């Protein structure tokens, strides 16, 4: 969807082409109906319609153009008439970029078990490539990751508004049996799938990693009003008041850390290949595994307690210190 607050020139041009492709001779549409359909504000619709009305082809062989009913527009309705010989009268094709973005999105969706059959995705991709102005094949291929049967249960629960009961492996590495979650939304984030759900125990929204979940079953408990009224955002982690501010340097091989952990301010370049950013961390001991993973492409610069947590993790891994897990990690 275009960001309704920030249409640029190309978005507006694209909207004009799409609108004229949709509007049928002499039919009347409510401005608000068109705004909803195209995912833009009513003001943008009015602006586009006025611009279409001004399209002046008087200097060409065919002297007619779109005629906008401005009185209707004043009252919130769109009605235009036109000479069929002379106007955009049908929906324009997609550019290769537009088609390949949508095609890739579709394949990404197919990594969610039970959402769509691969034949269905393939059929849609074929339609997209016929609508690509160059008839190109999809240029981005996303290979679906691992599948998980528990997701089918979760999706069913969201659809009918019931809780689930499951076993969940927390960050301390303990399997909690029979945990109740009121499921709200499935978040696909890169290769990971999270369930955003209401935790009745903590009376709060939590993100659960589906790959740490086992034996999900539908329960009879309906999803509560507190859960349904909860605000869902895009964040997986919410900083707490006692969090530590940690400075991290990354090379391109570890830039993904800047997406996984929202930096508190814009990252800065420290040299040709290195960027530096700051994040808030609940328990610096968790940084050991996060930083060690990259084998040198990510470094903690400060504070010292975070650096030593990473050093200890790496040394333990090398067998130079005895291994212990953090005690109060969630």
């Amino acid at each position: 969807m275009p960001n309704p607050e920030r249409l640029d020139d190309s978005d507006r041009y694209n909207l004009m082409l799409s609108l004229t492709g949709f509007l049928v001779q002499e039919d009347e549409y409510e401005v608000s109906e068109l705004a909803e359909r195209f995912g833009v504000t009513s003001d943008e619709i009015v602006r586009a319609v006025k611009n279409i009305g001004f399209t002046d082809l008087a200097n060409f062989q065919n002297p007619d153009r779109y005629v906008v009913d401005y009185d209707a527009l004043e009252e919130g309705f769109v009605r235009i008439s036109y000479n069929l010989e002379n106007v955009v009268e049908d929906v324009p094709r997609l550019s290769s970029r537009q088609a390949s973005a949508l095609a890739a999105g579709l394949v990404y969706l197919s990594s969610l078990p039970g959402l769509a059959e691969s034949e269905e995705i393939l059929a849609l991709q074929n339609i997209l490539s016929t609508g690509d102005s160059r008839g190109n094949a999809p240029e981005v291929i996303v290979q679906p990751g691992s599948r998980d049967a528990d997701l089918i249960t979760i999706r069913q629960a969201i659809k009918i508004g019931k809780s689930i009961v499951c076993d969940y492996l927390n960050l301390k590495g303990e399997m909690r049996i029979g945990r109740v979650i009121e499921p709200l939304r499935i978040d696909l984030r890169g290769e990971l799938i999270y369930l955003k759900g209401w935790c009745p125990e903590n009376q709060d929204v939590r993100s659960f990693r589906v790959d740490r979940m086992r034996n999900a079953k539908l329960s009879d408990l309906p999803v509560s009003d507190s859960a349904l009224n909860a605000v869902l955002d895009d964040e997986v982690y919410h900083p707490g008041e006692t969090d530590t501010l940690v400075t991290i340097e990354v090379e391109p091989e570890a830039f993904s850390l800047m997406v996984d952990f929202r930096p508190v301010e814009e990252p800065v370049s420290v040299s040709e290949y290195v960027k530096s950013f700051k994040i808030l961390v609940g328990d610096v001991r968790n940084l050991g595994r996060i930083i060690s993973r990259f084998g040198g492409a990510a470094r903690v610069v400060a504070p010292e307690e975070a650096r030593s947590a990473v050093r200890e993790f790496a040394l333990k891994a090398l067998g130079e210190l005895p291994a212990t897990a953090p005690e109060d990690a969630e």
Partner: protein
Amino acid sequence: MSESKSSPFKITKPERLFNLTCALLYTRNGLTKNEILRSVPGYENEYVDGGDNSSLERKFERDKSSLIHNGIQLEVTIPPHEDENNQVTVYSIKRESFYWPKNVEFTPRQMALLNLAADAWAGGSLSTAASRGITKLRAMGAVGEDSDIVGIAPRIQASEPSFRDLNNAISDHQVVSFMYRKPQTGEIQKRTLQPWLLRLVAGQWIVMGWDEDKQDTRNFMLRRIVSKVTSVKGVRPFDPPAQEQILKAVDDLDSLGAKQTAKIKVERDSEAWFKFELDLQGNGNSDEVTINYHDVYVLAEQLREYAGQIKVLKPDALIQVVRAGYERVANDHA
């Protein structure tokens, strides 16, 4: 109400592009640049008869690329007896390349899937392209509604700055170059590529294409591209490869992943035990698991998180890469 119309002297860029599109779509014999500048609103009001119109001409050049980026196939023809004289180059848009083929329709369910597919790019590298595409599709009638597609928020995460530049170069068949770091040696080399395809393999974005230096198909992991991706100047767009050539390259990479295996031993009931799904394997009592991989460095990253819970049994290369990574981290934080 006519005062509420835009003044002819303040024609915005979207209006100008739209006027240009209509004009090129409905011209019978095509229009020359001068005819366009003299007559299409957005240009004609600034056109000086017999004067200097060079800034207007540059505006037209920019508008041409805007049209092309929006997926419009601009027909550029030079009458046969007039070659070399670009004053008589004639522009037009063919209707059959402009409009969707007739009889193409989407069901509400298909539209709901497409909406979600566009949503997956929210805030990501292709979000603009996806949202403009979906705007056009919404003009085709169907409103996306399907009770089965609720409560899902997908986000494709492509953090690599090179992603959009490569995607554009693929669409435009443009040869690109970039600096690439080899994981084996850490050595940085300039590579020149005809990019064909972007793929997400085992969580990693890969660009596949024809390596002009090696004269062979090659795969590059986007996160190992350490510079900006730039178009190679003064080179014609490359001829897109045959579909079979792309499929073969895809196959080659996939069969590499199917061929290479690693074996690890996992501590029972540890986090890694569940991560590698040993509880689901139904392989009796074994605490060993075999993993397929494309790239030993990517697998090493996945394994380093589980220090103390796993032991790599083979191959030796993996054992060494995992260990070298820990050593670098320990040194960096000493």
